[in-house]
């Protein structure tokens, strides 16, 4: 463990010992590639924080705010079996358009990227497969980049000349992603993806954890299908049973995600499931434990 990670965990432990307990279990699984990724990443992140006169304490406070939100959403979810938000406009107003909430949310999510095993594993699935797509990609789109970590990785993998576009509905997300990625070949667009013109087509679209944020995920997938060139690739991740302040569409299990993908006209090139807890499939089903699904898709 690096000293920064130890510091982060000890801070979290002071505030929430049972949450720290869960995080510590993850570290038993983290191997060398984990530290190869995390060490330079944290260095970069600390520099970003410092440029705004912030420290790791700010990031940890953000993370704990996010966890507090998730805990109350989880209690409500286990009580009712439903996500608490139902309309996009309500979430847009309360979350995406609210810089205060969105700022702690995105910094919190960024920390989760290396504190949570399933977030780290899904990110690794993405970047280890990405090089396969370099040759066939003339232009790249990311939807809902949030903190901008995936974008950061993609920029380092693809050709200097490949144009990048990033669409996100939240100005706060765009600002953070831009700070994280000072590369000036990226076109940042603040827009609802449903309002983004589909006259432009892309060879590669990356959409991490956005599908569950829309009321009609089938419509979104159908739109993306039109925005892909023939032979193009869509990488997506989306969770089952993951209550959060901005989640609308509940996937009860991974098969529901696959069915939707097929219905929208995609075929699955490769896929992975990342359970949020180390539990048996029976237990995951019984206790509605979140599973993050990730896949590279092709137009059928």
């Amino acid at each position, binding site marked *: 463990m690096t000293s920064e990670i130890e510091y982060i965990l000890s801070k979290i432990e002071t505030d929430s010992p049972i949450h720290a307990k*869960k995080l510590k279990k993850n570290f038993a699984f983290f191997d060398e590639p984990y530290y190869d990724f995390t060490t330079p990443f944290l260095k970069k992140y600390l520099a970003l924080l410092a440029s705004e006169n912030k420290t790791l304490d700010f990031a940890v406070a953000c993370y704990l705010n996010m966890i507090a939100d998730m*805990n109350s959403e989880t209690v409500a979810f286990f009580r009712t079996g439903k996500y608490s938000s139902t309309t996009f406009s309500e979430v847009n107003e309360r979350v995406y358009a609210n810089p205060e909430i969105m700022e702690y949310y995105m910094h919190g999510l960024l920390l989760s990227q290396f504190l949570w095993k399933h977030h780290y594993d899904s990110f690794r699935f993405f970047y280890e497969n990405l090089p396969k797509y370099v040759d066939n990609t003339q232009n790249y789109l990311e939807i809902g980049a949030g903190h901008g970590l995936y974008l950061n990785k993609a920029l380092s993998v693809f050709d200097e000349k490949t144009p990048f576009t990033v669409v996100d509905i939240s100005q706060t997300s765009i600002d953070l992603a831009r700070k994280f990625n000072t590369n000036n070949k990226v076109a940042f667009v603040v827009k609802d993806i449903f309002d983004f013109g589909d006259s432009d087509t892309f060879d590669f679209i990356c959409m991490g954890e956005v599908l569950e944020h829309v009321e009609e995920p089938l419509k979104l997938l159908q739109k993306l299908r039109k925005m892909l060139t023939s032979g193009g690739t869509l990488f997506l991740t989306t969770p089952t049973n993951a209550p959060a302040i901005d989640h609308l569409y509940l996937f009860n299990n991974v098969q529901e995600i696959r069915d939707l993908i097929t219905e929208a006209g995609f075929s699955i090139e490769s896929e992975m499931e990342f359970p949020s807890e180390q539990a048996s499939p029976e237990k995951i089903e019984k206790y509605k434990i979140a599973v993050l699904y990730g896949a590279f898709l092709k137009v059928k």
Partner: protein
Amino acid sequence: MKELLAQVNEIFIDVLDNEDIVLSETTSANDVDEWDSLSHIQLIVAIERHFKIRFTSKEIQSWNNIGEMLTSIQDKLNQN
């Protein structure tokens, strides 16, 4: 309290899927390996269902051990 403790113990065994759990009033999350953040919430909701009560978020965050949890449950049952 004895009777309550026995019922809560059963719920812990079921939710945490570990037959060997033996709770006492001083047991805390440190003593039970499977008792972490997510299972804490699962335990709360299972206890709410079993006793037909509803905790506030303050209560949920305030317990340090089983004894405090039992006191909360007893208070709720007395209110009903």
